[in-house]
């Protein structure tokens, strides 16, 4: 299957109850309309969604796995960024 005629697309589905479209997989298709149909046929056949996005995979800019230490490691030692150091007064109730 040639990438030229059937490029790769990334599929995002919004589930019935969900607010955001979530990435659920990828597929090959000739163009946007066929990608949308293939996404419907491949990823929503068990009633998973009520909205579909398809995006050319080539349009996605991804971080380099080799950069993961500098990008993500610094956050691991900063637990104070999690909001777990506050005592919530009872009067506030459910937050």
């Amino acid at each position, binding site marked *: *299957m040639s990438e030229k005629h*059937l490029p790769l697309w990334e599929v995002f589905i919004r589930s019935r109850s969900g607010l955001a479209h979530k990435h659920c997989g990828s*597929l*090959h*298709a*000739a*163009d946007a*309309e*066929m990608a949308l*149909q*293939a996404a*419907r*046929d*491949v990823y929503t*056949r068990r009633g998973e969604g009520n909205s579909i996005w398809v995006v050319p995979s080539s349009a996605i800019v991804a971080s380099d796995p080799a950069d993961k230490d500098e990008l993500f490691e610094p956050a691991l030692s900063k637990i104070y960024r999690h909001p777990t150091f506050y005592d919530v007064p009872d009067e506030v109730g459910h937050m």
Partner: protein
Amino acid sequence: MATTSISFAESSLLNLVLRRADDALILGHRLSEWCGHAPMVEEDIALANIALDLVGQARSLYGYAALVEGSGLTEDHFAYRREQHQYRNCLLVEQPNGDFAATIVRQVLFSAFMDLYWREMMTSRDKALAAMAGKAEKETAYHLRHSGEWLIRLGDGTDDSHERAQTALDELWVYTGELFEADDIERGLAQSGVAPDVLSLEGSWNQRLAPILREARLEIPQAPFMQSGGRSGRHSEHVGYILADLQYLQRTHPEAVW
């Protein structure tokens, strides 16, 4: 000699329900033959989805046929225990899958007809048929959209895909006349408000097809005559092979259940 075939009195309504049910079952079976063989996995799943829609429609219709017949036969009896001449499907749906273009052309021609048919059936005086039509119409609208988009890409694609699509259209066109054949059964049930008047759908069918074929750069064939006979049980030799496949289990082990 004992036979596993059923016999039953075929009222007009039962005959009409079997026409719709057999169309759906035979085409559903044909499409299921692509499973594992389609040109790409995405289309493999898409064709299987359409096949399942059609088999689902056939089940509802056979269930209703059993109810109309009323002697205790079931949907399985109608699907698996009739002989070739008792099948009421049109010749178009029994045609072999051929290449992918032939499968797509067959689907466009049939779905364009059925989408119009189910849409009209939604206002049938027969509440059961109207309810089945409401469900089937949504499925059929998608079948037409999917096969229509494919046909545009095949017809307006490479020289090879264009030629294959045009060849398929030329070869299958002779089976389209039968869709609009209004015999006494179709006419009678149309007059009593039970079913759409198939003859009246031909104009809309041509209008549905025209923009698809135009965009696909395909020529509408000039058929010197139209093939017919499926509705009265005169089928091509293909049906025997389909039924051998489809009926093997129920013929070998009558009344077998899951």
